C-alpha cells in the first residue's frame, strides 16, 4: 500500500470538487474492495476522501412511485428494507447472494456499483492487464478465463463486472444519480452507467472525474415474480459464473438481465420481448454477438439453462 492523505468530506459537492481538483484522489465509503486493492497496489490513490459522514444513507419513497436509495445505504440495510423486500424482491435476493454478512454490513450501494473486476490477472501485478495498467496487454486472453466475459468483450479486456446488486438494478431499470464538481446533478440510466471495455477497459463507468454517486432511483415497482438465480462452483461466497435477474409476469412477459457474462449487467430489450417464447430465443438474442473463449464457452449454455430454470420457477410461482 502506498502512503496517502485522507480527509473527511463535508458535503457531497465539496467531495466532488476535491476529487476533481486533486490528482490521484478517490472516494472511500465501505472500503471493502478499495482497501484490498490498495494493499495489493492495484489501486494506488494518493488521497482518500471519506464520504461516510455525508448522510445519504436513507431509503425514501419517490413521489408518484419508486424508491430513492442513498449512496451510502449499506447492502445489509438495503436488502432488509421492507419496501425493497415487498416491491423489489429481486434486489434483496441479489444482495443476499453476494459477499458475506460482514461485507454486506460495510459495503454501500454506490460502492457496490463501483467495485472492480475479480479477473485473476487484474489481481496479479506481475501480469499484464489493460484495466490495471493501460496498454500493458491482457493476460486473461489466452489464459485462465473460466470466470470471464463471453459477450461485449474486446481485444483489450474480457473482464466481468462482479456485482449481483447491479444485475438486479439493471432488470429494475434503476438510474444512478450523481453530483458533479460544479454542483450540478444528473441521472444516468443503469444501462448506460457501466461501460463495455472497448480499448479503454481501465474505465469501468461513464462517471466523469470527480463525479460522485449520491443515490440510486428505482422506478415504480414492476409487477411479476422476482427471481435472482446465482450459479457458482460453491453454494455461497463466490462470484457468479452466471446469474439471472428476472421479473416475470403471469403472462410470461417480463425482463431478464444476466451477471457474470460481460463487463456490465447484460440485458437487451429485444431479448426481454422473447421471454414468452422461452429461454432458447432469449439466450440466442442475448448472446448473438458472443465471443467466448475455450474456458468459458460453457457460460452460454449455462445462461440459457439458468434462464429456463427461472422461467419454469416463475411459471410455478
Amino acid at each position, binding site marked *: 500500500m502506498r*502512503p496517502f492523505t485522507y480527509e473527511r468530506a463535508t458535503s457531497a459537492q465539496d467531495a466532488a470538487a476535491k476529487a476533481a481538483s486533486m490528482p490521484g484522489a478517490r472516494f472511500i465509503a465501505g472500503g471493502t474492495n478499495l482497501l484490498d486493492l490498495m494493499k495489493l497496489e492495484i489501486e494506488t490513490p494518493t488521497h482518500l476522501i471519506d464520504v461516510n459522514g455525508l448522510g445519504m444513507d436513507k431509503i425514501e419513497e419517490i413521489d408518484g412511485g419508486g424508491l430513492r436509495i442513498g449512496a451510502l445505504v449499506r447492502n445489509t440495510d438495503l436488502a432488509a428494507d421492507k419496501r425493497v423486500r415487498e416491491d423489489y424482491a429481486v434486489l434483496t435476493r441479489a444482495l443476499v447472494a453476494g459477499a458475506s454478512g460482514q461485507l454486506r454490513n460495510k459495503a454501500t450501494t454506490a460502492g457496490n456499483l463501483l467495485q472492480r473486476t475479480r479477473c485473476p490477472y487484474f*489481481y496479479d501485478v*506481475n501480469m499484464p492487464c489493460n484495466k490495471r495498467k493501460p496498454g500493458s496487454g491482457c493476460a486473461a486472453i489466452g*489464459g485462465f478465463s*473460466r470466470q470471464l466475459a463471453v459477450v461485449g468483450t474486446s481485444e483489450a479486456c474480457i473482464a466481468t463486472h462482479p456485482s449481483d446488486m447491479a444485475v438486479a438494478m439493471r432488470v429494475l431499470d434503476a438510474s444512478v444519480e450523481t453530483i458533479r464538481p460544479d454542483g450540478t446533478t444528473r441521472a444516468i440510466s443503469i444501462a448506460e452507467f457501466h461501460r463495455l471495455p472497448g480499448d479503454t477497459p481501465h474505465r469501468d463507468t461513464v462517471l466523469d472525474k470527480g463525479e460522485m454517486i449520491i443515490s440510486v432511483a428505482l422506478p415504480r415497482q414492476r409487477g411479476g415474480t422476482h427471481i435472482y438465480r446465482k450459479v457458482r462452483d460453491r453454494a455461497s461466497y463466490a462470484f457468479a459464473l452466471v446469474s439471472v435477474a428476472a421479473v416475470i409476469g403471469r403472462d410470461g412477459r417480463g425482463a431478464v438481465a444476466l451477471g457474470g457474462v460481460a463487463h456490465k449487467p447484460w440485458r437487451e430489450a429485444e431479448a426481454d420481448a422473447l421471454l414468452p417464447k422461452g429461454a432458447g430465443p432469449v439466450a440466442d438474442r442475448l448472446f448473438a454477438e458472443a465471443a467466448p473463449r475455450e474456458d468459458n464457452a460453457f457460460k452460454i449454455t449455462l445462461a440459457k439453462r439458468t434462464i429456463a430454470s427461472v422461467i419454469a420457477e416463475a411459471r410455478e410461482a
Partner: protein
Amino acid sequence: MKFDTPAGTNPIDRMTVVGKPTPRIDGPLKVSGQAPYAYEHQDVPGKMAYGYILGSAVAKGTIRSIDTARAERAAGVVAVVTHRNAGKLGKGRMNTAHLLAGPQVEHYHQAVAVVVAETFEQARAAAALIDVDYARDAGRFDLVAAKPDAKEGTGSDAPSGAGDFEGAFAGAPVQIDETYTTPDQSHAMMEPHATIAAWEGGKLTVWTANQMINWGLKDLAATLQLPVENVRLISPYIGGGFGGKLFLRADVLMAALGARAAKRPVKLALQRPLMANNTTHRPATIQRIRLGCARDGKITAIGHESWSGDLEGGGPEAATQQTKLLYAGANRMTALRLAVLDLPEANAMRAPGEAPGMMALEIAIDEMAEKLGMDPVAFRVLNDTQVDPENPERPFSQRNLVRCMEEGAQRFGWNRRKAKPGQVRDGRWLVGMGVAAAFRNNLNQKSGARVRLSTSGEVSVETDMTDIGTGTYTIIAQTAAEMMGVPLAKVNVKLGDSSAPVSAGSGGQWGANSSTSGVYAACVKLREAVVAKLGFGPGEAVFEGGQVRVGNRTADIASAARGGEIVVEDSIEFGDLAKKFQQSTFGAHFVEVAVDRYTGETRVRRMLAVCAAGRILNPTSARSQVIGAMTMGVGGALMEELAVDKRFGFFVNHDLAGYEVPVHADIPHQDVVFLDEADDKVSPMKAKGVGELGLCGVGAAVANAIYNATGVRIREYPITLDKHLDRLGEVA
C-alpha cells in the same frame, strides 16, 4: 522401548480415560485467544520488526539485476535481504527448490527478497519498490505435454506387481480401461506460514508453524549452515497444516535472514496471494486404470499407472499406492511416472498418494461394478483380501473393510439406491447415491517423550510433537492420565519445542499413534521409577485413582516424588511388525447428492463414513478429523483446482477467492461411525491413524453419486458444472 512383538494386555486397555469422548484440553485457550500462534508470541526479547517477502514475478529464469535502493530509502525500512547479501546458504534435505531465489529463479513467487521495517505496512510498501530485472526462460508447465517424457519411478516408487497383468487383462471377459485426472491442489489452511525469528549471538530461535519440528530444525540449520544445537524451533499451536507445514519454508528462512540483517527479532507471515505458488502443493495426476474381471465379478487383472510432475529432483505423487493392497486379484501392475515441470514445488498434501489415487480407483471400481451388473458394495466385498495381494504370505494386521461397507450400507439406506442412474427426481434436482472404499496405510515413526512426576503429584509430558488442530494435546494427556492413574486435569502437556525429545511429528496420519506410543513408553519408565522410589518391590503395579498399588501395599502417587520430582525419558521404536503384517486403515464413504438438472450444480445432501482404524483414542477429536476430511473430500470432488497458466507458468487463482474450498452451505449433515477395534500389531496403543483415512475415497463417492444421479460419468476432477452441463438433457 522397542515395539517388535504384538502388544499384550497393558494399562491402556482399561480405557478409563483413553477412548472416552474428551473435549480438547487446549480448547479454552484457543477460544479465549490465549493460545499463541506463530505470529502472536509476545515473549520475544527485543523490539520487533516486520518482514515482508517479495515473490518472483517469473516462473523460470535469472535475476539479471535487483535494485533495492528505493526500498532501502523508504520510510521505516531497517534491512533488505536478497541473494546478494544473504550469505552462503545451503538447502534443506526436504526442499526441492531453494527457498531464496537468485540468481536462478526456479518457480513463480519463489522468494526474491525480504524487506524488514518498523511496521508491517512499511515493509509491504517498500517491497513494492524493489526493481528486479528478470531474464525469463521458457519452462515446462503442462503435464499433458510433458507426459511422454515422464520417467518411471525408482526405489519405493518403482513399478510393482504380481502374475501376468497384460495377459490376464487381455483375456478378461469384462474389462474397463479408463483415464482419470486430478488437478493441482493447495493446502489452503487457515493460518498462513508464519515465523518470528530472533538471534542471540550465533544462536537462532524461531517461533513458527511447523508440523515436523525435527525436520524443520535440521533443514533450517542446514540452510543457514549452523550447528543444529544453535537452532531452536518453537511451534506450540498451529492453525492447520495438511502437509503444507511439513517442511522448512520461506517464512522461516526469510525471517531468520531478515532478523540477522536487522539485528532485531523479525516477524513475518506469508501473504495469502503468495501461498499457492511460494509453498508446496499436491500435484496434478493423470491416471490410467485397467480392470479385468471374470463374469462372476472376481478381479483377475488390476493395473494402475499414474503420471505427475515436479521440479527437477522432486518426486512423483504415489497415486497407485492403494491399488497394490486394496483388492484381491492374481495379476497386478502399478507404475508411477514423473515428468519434470517448472511449476512450483509439488509435495505432500493430506494423504499423499491415496487421496488422488482413491479419487480415480474408486470411480473405476464403480464403473466395473456397473459393467458387471453388480451392486458396488457387493463387488467390493467380493474382492476383499485379508493378505497383501502382491505378497500373499503377508497378512493384514487387521482389516475390516467388509464390515465398514456392510454396516455403512445398512445405516445409509443403500438398498434404496436405484442401480440404474438418472432415475430419482426431486423437483428440479436429480438425486443419486454413491459409495467408495476408504483406504490409507498406517505408518509409524519413532517418537520420544519426557515425563515428570512433580512433588504435588502432577504429571507433565514434554515432546516436540505438534498439534496442528488435530487434538494431539488431548490424546497425549489422556495417554499419560491412563498410564499414571491420575485425572486428566493433573496432566500438563508441552508440545512443539525442539528442546524436547524428538517425536514422530504430525504427518502421514502417523502422529496420534506414534506420539502417544512414545508417551506410553516414557510412562512405563516413569511407573517403574515410581514403584522403585516407593520401594514396593516386585509384583504387578496398578496405577489408579491417584494411587499406586502393588500387592496389598498402596501409596499416593505424589508421595513417590516427595524427595524431588522424578523425570524420565524414553521413545518408542517400531521393529519389523510392519514388514510381517500390512498395516492399513479402512473405511467406507456413502454420499447422497442432488444435481440441478438445469444448471448442473451439485449439492451434497448426506454423508456417512464408517471407519476401521484400530483403537480410537478420543472419539470427539477423531470425529472432528473425519468430518474435516470429508469436507476436504467434497472440495476435491467439486471445486478445488489450482488453475495453471501454461504460458506464464503459475497457479493463477492464488487466493481464497479464486481457490475455492467448501463453505458451510456446501456441507450437509455428516455421520461418522468408528468400528470398535484394537490392533495389537501396530503399537501398544493399538491405535492407527484416522485423519487422512477420512479423506481417501470421499471424492470418488461424490463422483459416483453424481453419476448415479445424472447418468453422466465425469472422470476429470473437480466435477464442476461445465463438465456435464450439456449432457443433462434438454430443458424447456
